[in-house]
């Protein structure tokens, strides 16, 4: 089935006047031949069918054909524009050539006229030598001008053909430039992506390094803490050992203390009882109560003294300071002796006997000694 394109266009188009278009600001209109439209449609349909893998639904066919038609139309319009531009240029060069030809013709006519005048002048019996020379000079100048114009013409022709060649070359370079620009854009985009990836990697590495540094610091801190804890544990173990060693004495003292406390409680109860009895029997002699209080106070004082003495003995026995922590010169001597008692006696593996220390010679001290002795004598 073939489509009557003209009829279809006429059916779907509306008619308007040129004046009306001009009123709407459209001074130029594009014109396309019906045959061209037909060709484009055929081409569009053929392209779609060729690219399709198999039978195609109608809607899809219509849509794709429409798109293909638009693409071909744009291509055609672009070609048309290029053609029009070329035609404009050709027309321009043609007008230039016509103009030059007319000018050449005009010059040639003038030369011919001058030649004719020269011939006529030559046949004239009375020759004005001066006029002849002047005319010759004029003729020569005109001939020279003609030669120059001819040269200019050939130069312009060459320029015209060079312009056409340049135009073509320009088109090629434009295409290449666009291609290069597209390539550059693509590379730029790739580079940006690469930069972003690199930056991300660097950031990740920095973070990793920072994490590692923090880990190392934490590890160092942990080691230091562990050392401190170990030293604390050793100290505590020593204290525990000391406590254990003095445990039997401590236990007996604690039992004694408990007994005393029980005694104290008993005495306090007894005291309260007696106070109550005293309150009830107000008529009883005052001296008895006083005696009882004195006895109680004496007993309490005795218990308190005993407790203090025992607690003091406990501290000494427990190694809480006593002789070791003393600040007297004798105590310090004992402490220092204890420090070196084991340290200096063992065998030590070293190479100290084989190495030499830094050594230097210096001026003597005889002068100092002499002055000091003199000072002592004075």
């Amino acid at each position: 089935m073939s489509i009557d394109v003209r009829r279809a266009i006429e059916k779907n188009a509306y008619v308007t006047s040129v004046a009306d278009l001009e009123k709407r600001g459209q001074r130029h209109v594009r014109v396309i031949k019906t045959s061209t439209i037909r060709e484009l449609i055929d081409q569009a349909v053929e392209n779609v069918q060729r690219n399709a893998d198999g039978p195609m639904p109608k809607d899809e066919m219509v849509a794709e054909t429409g798109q293909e038609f638009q693409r071909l139309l744009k291509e055609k319009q672009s070609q048309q524009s290029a053609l029009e531009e070329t035609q404009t240029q050709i027309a321009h060069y043609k007008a230039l050539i016509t103009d030059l030809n007319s000018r050449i013709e005009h010059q040639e006519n003038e030369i011919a006229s001058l030649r004719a005048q020269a011939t006529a002048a030559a046949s004239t019996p009375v020759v004005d030598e001066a006029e002849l020379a002047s005319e010759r000079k004029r003729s020569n100048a005109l001939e020279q001008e003609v030669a120059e114009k001819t040269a200019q013409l050939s130069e312009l022709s060459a320029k015209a053909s060079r312009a056409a060649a340049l135009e073509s070359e320009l088109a090629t370079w434009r295409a290449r430039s666009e291609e290069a620009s597209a390539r550059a854009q693509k590379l730029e985009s790739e580079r940006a992506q690469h930069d972003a990836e690199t930056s991300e990697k660097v950031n990740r590495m920095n973070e990793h390094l920072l994490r590692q540094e923090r880990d190392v610091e934490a590890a160092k801190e942990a080691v230091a803490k562990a050392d401190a804890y170990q030293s604390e544990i050793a100290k505590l173990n020593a204290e525990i050992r000391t406590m254990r060693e003095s445990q039997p004495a401590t236990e007996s003292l604690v039992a004694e203390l408990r007994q005393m406390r029980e005694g104290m409680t008993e005495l306090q109860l007894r005291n309260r009882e007696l106070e109550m009895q005293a309150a009830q029997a107000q008529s009883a002699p005052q001296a008895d109560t006083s005696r009882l209080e004195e006895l109680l106070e004496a007993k309490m004082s005795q218990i308190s003294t005993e407790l203090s003495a025992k607690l003091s003995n406990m501290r000494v026995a427990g190694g809480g300071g006593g002789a070791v922590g003393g600040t007297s010169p004798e105590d310090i001597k004992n402490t220092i002796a204890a420090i070196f008692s084991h340290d200096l006696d063992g065998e030590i593996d070293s190479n100290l006997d084989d190495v030499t220390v830094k050594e230097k010679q210096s001026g003597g001290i005889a002068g100092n000694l002499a002055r000091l002795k003199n000072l002592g004598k004075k």
Partner: protein
Amino acid sequence: MSNSGDHEAMNPSDSAGVSAASTETASSSQAVALGKGLDVGTANLVAAVQNDDGGITVKMERNAFIDIEHDVHSKNLLTKLKVPYVVHNNTMVVLGDESFQLANIFNRTTRRPMKDGLISPSEADAMTMVRLIIQKVLGEPQAPGEVVYFSVPGEPIDSEANVVYHEGVFSGLLTKLGYEPRSMNEAHAVVFAELADQDFTGIGISCGGGMFNVCVAFKSIPALTFSTSRGGDWIDKNVSQVLGVPVSKATFIKEQSMDLMNPTNREEEAVSIYYRNLINYTLTNIKSQFLGSSGMPEFPAPIDIVTSGGTSSPNGFIELFRDEFKKLDFPIKINEIRRADDPLTSVAKGCLVAAAIAE
């Protein structure tokens, strides 16, 4: 404030003044050779002894160590390289200067038996190392009970530290080594070593690693002694903090041949700043101690200030010191401010003078 313990911490000038017998015996060659001086410093241990040529021989070792992994390969290598090591409690320990170099190479910090001029409470096990270093620099006694004067710091005015225990420990150690130990204030030792031409009158300052010790002496008798608990280590610690480097590295920068008056880079600039601050701190304290002390003698003539110690070694130290001194209205007239000819050995030399007199 003068320091004294129960270990015969005497004024050595006393022995010079009261013992005619010792003065006479000092003329014999045996008596002159006997007696040793020992500078027990936070940074260095220095021993001085008289030699046959009439001069003195000084032996020194850095008071530091570092523990490394104990294996046969390391042991063989250290033996071959003659690097001093000790195997202690199944750990290999490198002693002295080499420990400092190793710490720099491996970016670690050396362990220090002493801190702020005194035995470090956190390095109790280090006494064995100190004993070995002392044995090495001091050697065996030439005769049983040979007198050795060892330096002790003065009572610090800016900390609660007590020198009694420190003094007692070293006294005990030297006794164990067969010596008769006597302690001496280290700034007083500087007076003995450097102010002989001024009749031992003036101000001696020992600029050590852990402390700065000051002694104002008149005719060899100390009128005022004290210490401040800031020294070379304080500079190292602060430089380390501001530059973000290990303390050993900061020490290394400080001990390079830099000029404190003309620092050439950021690190040297930092060292110079803290030096200036430390000197100013010390001078301000000396001034306030002078003004606050009731027993200060009247000096008939301007006196000298002499500095010694490793911390006073860098170029430009004495110029910096003079610079800071000019800023203070000092209560005593000063004739000259100078540095000991050999700052590292001055204290040991002063102790040796005291020991020689005692012998």
